[in-house]
């Protein structure tokens, strides 16, 4: 992928994009498996499916599929569409044409977090339980000590880690061997979780504005402090050399290559944006990173050159979600006012 942020063209003109305005906050966005469609999960129960091609015509507004808020959405790892979770207590499979099938229902619960793995599995959390959806079956794991506030698959998809009050729990998903879950304890409430792309580390953000990271094999841990707000967005680079964290005015990456980040400061670069970064998303294959701010600003950074460009000016509507297309050419962006933005970075 050829993106040279030093090229003046990046500073002067924005890449091709499509922006649609809706009137419901965007809770999450995702591309489907082959990157042809982008989906935005909205606060009115609708899921807006749009062609990933920013020049293609946008279809008419969608009908509500969930009863309340669509809280989470991922590309369906076993199909062409998406899987969504809502505060109506349902997980739906959304086909490419927008038709929905119910996969799971838990009365009175909120499906706040969904993750997908390329093996075709989806993990969803509602209340104190984690649900694994794989090969047409649903298995429940839990209960955890509190509501699950973040979850992620291991690199090979054989395990799922769940964040909760008092630490994290790692479940082995094997059907043949039943292993007891591993509990990694750390006092306080853990509110976000991402497993490193090489499988070696699990990072959480805490209620006390810290980052906590465990080495899975050794069960040793480390803590990074000094954030002015809770870190609810964590993103590992494709090569697992860096962990990006939100809640700073610039891109903030902890180095995990070699001996790890202990005793080192994080790498910080980019324009000091207006406000604090609310969402950060490392590129799926290259050294780029996208960061959205509570002010509405959107930046694209390159960790090799430490350069960054502003892709979207601050407009007061906090960015709530970011998603890269699988090929890394397109970026989907949603905010709390209901703007649905898709950017094509091939200029």
């Amino acid at each position, binding site marked *: 992928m050829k993106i040279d942020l030093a090229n003046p063209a990046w500073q002067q003109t924005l890449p091709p994009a499509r922006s649609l305005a809706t009137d419901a906050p965007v809770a999450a966005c995702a591309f489907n498996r082959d990157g042809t469609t982008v989906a935005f999960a909205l606060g009115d129960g609708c899921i807006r499916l749009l062609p990933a091609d920013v020049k293609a015509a946008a279809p008419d507004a969608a009908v509500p599929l969930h009863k309340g*808020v669509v809280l989470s959405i991922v590309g369906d790892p076993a199909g062409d569409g998406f899987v969504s979770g809502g505060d109506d207590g349902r997980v739906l499979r959304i086909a490419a044409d927008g038709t929905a099938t119910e996969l799971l229902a838990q009365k009175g619960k909120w499906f706040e977090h969904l993750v997908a793995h390329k093996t075709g599995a989806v993990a969803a959390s509602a209340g104190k339980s984690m649900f694994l959806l794989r090969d047409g079956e649903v298995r429940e794991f839990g209960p955890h000590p509190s*509501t699950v506030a973040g979850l992620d698959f291991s690199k090979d998809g054989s395990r799922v880690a769940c964040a909760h009050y008092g630490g994290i729990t790692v479940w082995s998903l094997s059907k043949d061997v039943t292993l007891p879950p591993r509990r990694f304890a750390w006092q*306080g409430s853990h509110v976000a979780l991402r497993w490193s792309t090489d499988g070696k580390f699990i990072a959480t953000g805490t209620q006390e504005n810290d980052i906590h990271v465990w080495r899975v094999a050794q069960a040793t841990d480390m803590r990074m402090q000094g954030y002015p707000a809770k870190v609810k967005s964590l993103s590992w680079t494709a090569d697992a050399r860096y962990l990006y964290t939100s809640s700073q005015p610039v891109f903030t990456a902890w180095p995990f290559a070699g001996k790890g980040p202990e005793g080192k400061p994080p790498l910080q670069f980019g324009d000091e944006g207006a406000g604090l970064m609310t969402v950060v998303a490392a590129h799926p294959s290259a050294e780029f990173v996208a960061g959205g701010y509570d002010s509405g600003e959107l930046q694209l950074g390159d960790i090799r050159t430490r350069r960054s460009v502003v892709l979207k000016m601050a407009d007061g509507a906090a960015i709530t979600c970011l998603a890269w297309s699988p090929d890394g050419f397109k970026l989907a962006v949603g905010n709390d006012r209901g703007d649905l933005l898709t950017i094509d970075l091939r200029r």
Partner: protein
Amino acid sequence: MATPQTSAQVPVTVLTGYLGAGKTTLLNRILSEQHGKKYAVIVNEFGELGVDNDLVVNADEEVFEMNNGCICCTVRGDLIRIIEGLMKRKDKFDGILVETTGLADPGPVAQTFFTDEDVKARTRLDAIVTVIDAKHFFGQLEQGAEAEQQVAFADVILLNKTDLVSADELAKVEDRIRGINRYARIFHTQNSQIALDAILDKGAFDLGRILEFEPDFLHSGHDHHHEDEVRSLSITADRPVDPDKFQKWMGALLQIKGGDIFRSKGILAIDGAPRRYVYQGVHMMMDSDWGTPWKDGEKRSSKLVFIGRSLDGDNLQRGFDDCLK
């Protein structure tokens, strides 16, 4: 980052009270009345709530200790999560009502609104409303600390089921309530029947309205208190306050006694400052700001109010006196 205090913050009313005191009846009243407003209701169990227009969210009370090693510094994790989720909805609310379980300590709920920045940015704690069963209150006081805590934290108290007790019994219950918390407004009710403006939009945690309500001291008959009893008291000063000394004293006081001090608030005449300094706290957590300016010729006096357990009024007064110019 500072969170702007705007009117866009949704007011939150907390309803506490023992099981059977009349919380659900009160909730149903609030929701069924023709007020044209829309509420989100956070309950622990789906009761018989007759709601069409409003949203009912079921929550488990998840009380989380903060990572500072102090047992009184707690928040409601479920509330933080639910408020965040509610703010993702297209349809906005005029208010949020939080019903606690009968045995809940209101501390964690209140502290959530003092500590969590996301919650503070989107909502404001309006008032803590406690419903009391006039007939069973004394029995509930015997059963544990909760009934006392619920009275101590209250801004508004519904002394309910007054039809089930004699005038004499009622007076005794009210006297006992006043002994714990003389700063709450008390309403006598039957079947939780109350005008909504008596319990909603009270601004009880609004720093601009601190100590707006002067208690009726004629009612504070219960003065023969025991050592570990919960009660409320106020201390005053007519000389200006030295801000550094006050900060040090209050900091140390809350460090040592924060677990026993449920609520505190105050208006201070800071030496040389043209405006009142106002603060309020729940246990160790505090909010403060500059209030309205003193008028020309107005008497600049300070007043602090404490509601808590094992409070030594003389000791507090002496400590405060040492902070004066």
